[in-house]
């Protein structure tokens, strides 16, 4: 995908976002109420800025007067794969967090990532992958008393 196309698509998405906000704002009232300007007034003005601004961004992109190099690829060839290697395991970790809690999910995530994506030895992977969540558990849960998500079953497994 070319940068120009990505620019236009992003602007269209933001414009849609602006329209949704404007719709809700009108629904809540953008005029003058008993309390002065009503709840939708400020979001409505901002939504107008988004809609107008993105319309002009699209105009600039089509005319080629944007600050971007429109003819360049948005993501260089081979650039998407490393990003996916970062995002997908991270999303999997969060999904796992919903089930077994952040600390246990992080152990699986860290050990797995360092071992397979990073090609490090088992010793390094296990050492860092177990030690860091364990230390964070002691620091946050025990010392600062900031609880981390335990998921559905995490609290039964982590019993100390």
């Amino acid at each position: 995908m070319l940068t120009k196309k990505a620019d236009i698509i992003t602007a269209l998405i933001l414009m849609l976002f602006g329209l949704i906000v404007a719709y809700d704002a009108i629904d809540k009232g953008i005029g003058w109420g008993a309390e002065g300007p009503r709840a939708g007034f400020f979001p409505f003005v901002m939504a107008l800025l988004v809609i107008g601004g993105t319309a002009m961004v699209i105009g600039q992109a089509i005319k080629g007067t944007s600050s971007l190099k429109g003819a360049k690829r948005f993501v260089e060839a081979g650039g998407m794969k490393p990003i996916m290697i970062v995002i997908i395991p991270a999303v999997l970790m969060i999904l796992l967090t919903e089930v077994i809690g952040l600390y246990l999910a992080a152990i699986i995530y860290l050990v797995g990532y360092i071992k397979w994506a990073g090609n490090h030895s088992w010793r390094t992977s296990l050492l860092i992958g177990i030690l860091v969540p364990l230390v964070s558990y002691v620091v946050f849960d025990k010392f600062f008393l900031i609880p981390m998500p335990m998921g559905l079953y995490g609290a039964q497994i982590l019993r100390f």
Partner: protein
Amino acid sequence: MDILSNLMMGLHIAVQPFNVFVAFVGVVLGVIVGVLPGLGGANGCAILIPVTFVMPPVAAVILLSSLYWGALYGGCICSILFNIPGEPWAVATTFDGYPMAQKGGAGRALSAAFFAHGVGALFGTILLTFFAPIIAAFALMFGPPETFGVMLLTFSAFVGLVGKSPLKTVVATAIGFILAAVGIDTISGELRLTFGLVPLMGGFNFIVAVIGLFGLGEIFLTVEEGLKLEGVKVKMKWSDITSVLWDMLKYKKEVLMGAIVGCWMGFKPGGATPASFMAYGFAKAGAKADEVGEYGKGHVAGIFAPEAAAHGAGTSALLPMLTLGIPGSPTAAVILGGLMIWGLQPGPMLFKDKPDFVWGLIGSTWVANLIGLFVVLAFAPLFAAVLRISFSILMPLLIFICAIGAYAVNNRMIDIWYMILFGIIGWAFKKLDYNMAPMLLALVLGDMAEATLRQSLIMSQGSLWIFVQPPIALPLVLAAGVIAFWPAISALKARLTGGGEPAH
């Protein structure tokens, strides 16, 4: 002198053992996040805010501000040794810092940067100490229209002076304000922009946005560009430090000019980056004929000027944050957000209501910057070693820490998902020239900006004329207009005088 006795009180608070310890921890953590690509002061502060809930507010603000100073010090380690600017304002330092390090002068380049930071910090702190009370006293006269005018000025500075696309800055700012408005309207108590969805009713937290936009977004960019960390090894010797001190006397003009430019640009939003480039440009333009050729090849003054400017700008960014409640940099915005969470109302009243808090912060700015200078001079090679850890180990650890920070704010699982979402948005926005600093500022200031706007309109019964009333609101709004349209005005001027090409 009133200010001096207040300063003594602040220093007294800052040198209490616990506060010195907190400042030290903050500085060390700050240098680490400053060194790491993908983390910066804004992120570090955002992740630490939940930890500050268990501290008294003075210690909490000392922790966050010390982290900020540490991050400023740490940013140059990355750009000098690895030619990777950790922050945008460190770009100018790579011009001369990296060549000098490559030629075997890594220790000298780092000492030069650290001492320049020290001078910048000194100037910024003096400015903060002596001007903050004056500006705060002046700001006490502000009502809602004037406060709104100051905000208008802040955001118009982003539109007119910072970033590549003024139009996209407007869009990003408006999006920030919209995200801030999601949830309960603070004035009428009505739910809005929630579309009946429960997770949206709690609104968006700026801390989660910071961690996503500035943390994960940066990480995605870094892996996309295929980061190669091949740095120069460093050893700090006494001779490096003494020779740099002599250099500093020789190039005192460049150092002082850098610090002053930094302070002048710093209290305007987004000022640190242009300040560092301006200082570098001035130093080069004012160089002796036989030295101009040295710039870009490892000239020590090419490190002094931009680094002094960067730290000066970073320090003076606290000035508008403390006195007006308007932060001058993303990190200052996060600290301001912290203030609100601790139950303090930022703005001029803080000087009257909580003098121990304000002067404790100012006092610790003196203390923590000094600690920072010693820490980086003594342990620079150790911090550089952090960068030698393989990125495939660092990266998942960073994501794990970011997830902890995002969750801890409100103990909501949805925030971790928002964090990933903001990360992807941040990555795309950065690539498409949408400026994220004003978006973050709008998210932090959203409630206040909206409240001042609506209160002003209530005062005037709906008339917009209240914003152009003399003596304070009118010049503020006029200045905001001029600054916002500055690119268009300068293009017009160029066309009228025929002195060059129009701006596009």
